């Protein structure tokens, strides 16, 4: 990536967007409190803040999805009020949202067409889409339906869709959360290019390093208020984090622990996918021993979803002994039978996979705990026990919520993830398998989750973490393996393998030639 250019190089232009005293209330809760924000063309402006700081609400105000209760917005010097997102889009405001506005049953091209006002035919758009996708290195198959795609691929649709609108102001909410370092670098080049074109970019991220690399200005939100403005290039990660959180972030510490017997053994696991467009798992061999954390890195859509499903028992395998949990062949066992062997699972999707959004936390606690433990007695649910479990998770993992037992969908992403991870950890598993533990979480919540995983492994449990956040894996894992086109590299101790080496493996180079060839044909 090109180094961020000095703001002095570009002509000082009048602000493209001006927000003055923007206020939004939901009932008695003030999500945005008199926020001022200036966005100029040719500038990358970072918006920093923890989950619940009011970033999403502010973005919704700017994109016309919500209307402010108070305050004024100016666009190119004239006061504006957006009745809906179409009006904001018409003026050249595009957003890549953290919660994808995608339609599962429609194809990639149809999804893009819906986001554009141009009356282009879907077929013509497919060509255009492929061209833009190629140019920015964001490969996409226009004819695939969204429900077949991974989170990372879905985000690519959002980014390409926004770029096709040729926006004057582009808002990006956590765009690199699911990208590899190389992909992120390529994205930064694109953003730098867009900035040099004179466009304004509003960049929302929890990754402070990125913000320091990219942005020329930063506005920091806390509790719905602006608590600071700075040039992030002049700040350190620690000072930025302090402004954002209000106190020093506790970084998880590598604890010293002894490594014992294998708790999870995967032997030569080969598995064709259920879905014709899925990834075939090829000859995967892996051991996770008691007391260690093994990380699986890789770009989204390289077989991580399929591997998690095979390990958790969502996909049952014919060859029983391909997967062994605690020494017992488990390939043919159901999820609950695997839980009885001491395993616990945290899937990637928090709402809809790890929890039922409209069910209360206590009911959600029951969903993974009914087969083991004492939540069910004589076939009847023990309400007292499920509620007590919710209370214990809440206390141990600092889950913040409005009432004792709310619906899962009412919790913020970070608090819900703390609840889900806590729910599994309190079952005292011998083996915990986690997919994307801190995706989209702020530094505070992500740190807490990682610390919980470290603490769990220190008690002698084996932990397998699948993550697209390389920094996270380097921080907590003892050994790291890389997934690429359905293959898994041999896990190597973190101390012996460099970040650049991992990045190469994730990008598909450094594999033995035969493997790479087979993989490319997958």
């Amino acid at each position: 990536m090109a180094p961020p250019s000095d703001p002095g190089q570009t002509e000082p232009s009048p602000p493209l967007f001006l927000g003055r005293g923007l206020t939004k209330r939901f009932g008695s809760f003030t999500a945005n409190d008199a926020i001022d924000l200036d966005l100029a063309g040719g500038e990358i402006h970072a918006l920093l803040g923890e989950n619940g700081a009011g970033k999403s609400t502010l973005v919704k105000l700017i994109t016309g999805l919500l209307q402010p209760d108070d305050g004024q917005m100016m666009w190119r010097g004239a006061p504006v009020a957006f009745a809906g997102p179409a009006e904001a889009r018409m003026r050249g405001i595009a957003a890549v949202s953290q919660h994808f506005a995608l339609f599962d049953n429609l194809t990639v091209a149809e999804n893009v067409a819906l986001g554009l006002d141009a009356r282009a035919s879907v077929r013509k758009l497919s060509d255009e889409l492929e061209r833009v996708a190629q140019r920015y290195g964001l490969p996409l198959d226009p004819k695939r339906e969204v429900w077949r795609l991974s989170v990372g691929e879905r985000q690519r649709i959002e980014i390409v869709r926004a770029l096709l609108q040729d926006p004057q102001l582009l808002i990006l909410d956590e765009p690199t959360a699911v990208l590899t370092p190389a992909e992120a670098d390529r994205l930064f080049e694109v953003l730098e290019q867009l900035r040099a074109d004179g466009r304004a970019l509003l960049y929302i991220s929890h990754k402070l390093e990125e913000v320091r690399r990219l942005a020329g200005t930063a506005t920091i939100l806390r509790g719905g208020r602006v608590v600071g403005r700075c040039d992030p290039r002049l700040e350190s990660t620690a000072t930025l984090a302090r402004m954002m959180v209000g106190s020093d972030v506790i970084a998880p510490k590598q604890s010293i622990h002894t490594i014992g017997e294998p708790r999870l053994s995967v032997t030569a696991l080969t598995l064709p996918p259920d879905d014709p467009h899925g990834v075939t798992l090829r000859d995967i061999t892996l051991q996770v021993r008691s007391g260690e954390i093994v990380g699986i890195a890789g770009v989204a859509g390289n077989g991580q979803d399929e591997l998690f499903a095979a390990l958790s028992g969502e996909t049952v395998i014919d060859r029983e002994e391909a997967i062994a949990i605690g020494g017992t062949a488990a390939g043919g066992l159901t999820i609950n039978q695997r839980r009885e062997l001491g395993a616990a699972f945290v899937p990637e999707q928090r709402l809809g996979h790890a929890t039922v959004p409209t069910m209360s936390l206590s009911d959600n606690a029951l969903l993974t705990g009914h087969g083991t433990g004492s939540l069910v007695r004589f076939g009847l649910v023990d309400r007292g026990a499920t509620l007590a479990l919710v209370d214990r998770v809440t206390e141990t993992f600092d889950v913040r919520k409005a009432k004792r037992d709310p619906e899962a969908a009412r919790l913020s992403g970070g608090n819900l993830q703390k609840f889900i991870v806590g729910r599994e950890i309190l079952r005292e598993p011998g083996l915990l398998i986690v997919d994307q533990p801190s995706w989209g979480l702020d530094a505070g919540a992500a740190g807490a989750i990682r610390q919980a995983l470290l603490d769990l492994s220190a008690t002698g449990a084996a932990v397998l973490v699948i993550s697209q956040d390389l920094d996270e894996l380097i921080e907590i894992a003892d050994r790291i393996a890389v997934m690429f086109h359905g293959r898994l590299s041999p896990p190597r101790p973190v101390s012996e393998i460099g970040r650049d080496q991992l990045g190469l493996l994730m990008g598909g180079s450094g594999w033995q030639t035969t493997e790479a060839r087979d993989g490319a044909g997958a």
Partner: protein
Amino acid sequence: MGLFEAILLSIITASTPLLLAASGELIAERAGVLNLGVEGMMLIGAVCGFAGAWATGSTAIGALCGIVAGVALAALFALAAIGLAINQVAAGLALTILGTGLAGLIGAPLVGENIAAAPHLWLPGLTDLPLIGKLLFGQDAFVYLAIGLMVGIAYVLARTRTGLILRAVGDDPASAHALGYNVAAVRTLAVLFGGGCAGLAGAYLTLAYTPFYAPGMTAGRGWIALALVVFASWRPGRLVAGAALFGAVSILQLHAQAFGLGVPSQLMSALPYLATVVVLVLISRIRRGGSVAPAALGTTFVPER
């Protein structure tokens, strides 16, 4: 005219109201709205269509009256289920009860009256062709209209932006709203279209099928139309095949009785519903993940404020 040709002709006549009503419901369901009031809208369309034709002597005006009546009843449903976000199942069932009652009230003085049946197409030479002549060139206007409507719906859904927006709203209204589409407006229009089709299907019964009105004369065809949409797995092409199949079952049931076959007529009447259950099982076996049905079918949507 041979028996075979007579059977084919009567199958077309029996299929047309099913096809009309089901195409309207297909559009509403593709937008994510489950309107269980089809039976009620058909009945009100039947009685109003008959009243219009009886008063003016014109089949066309009768058909128009049927459409307007269906749209009016659908508007009531849209107000409840979309405007006020009431549970769609409850609102739809209430609509059928209301439609049945209203039709009985309006139709009471019309029972026993007669009108001229809708004219059939007659093309010299073509209509006289053996076997296919009457089948292809001797139908009434409703039949051609129903087929034209189906072709139009298939084209709009698959090829146009309007169809894409409609499917998007039925798949994920929250995302559609986030992209700036007016979910309530799209859904309301889809429901009104569905009401118009159901009204026309009802009017077909009194204007062409039998040129008189009798209380409760839809005899469950609205429910069969609902089952048909599921049977067709929300695809227009399969809807035509399904309508023909369901129409054939109802006709063969009559012929089976005439020949004294020992199949209970109740079983034959239940066949469309049994077929729907079988199809539902099959599609869930064949396809994994994703959704054949509109993902947001039957769910209300209220934008965040």
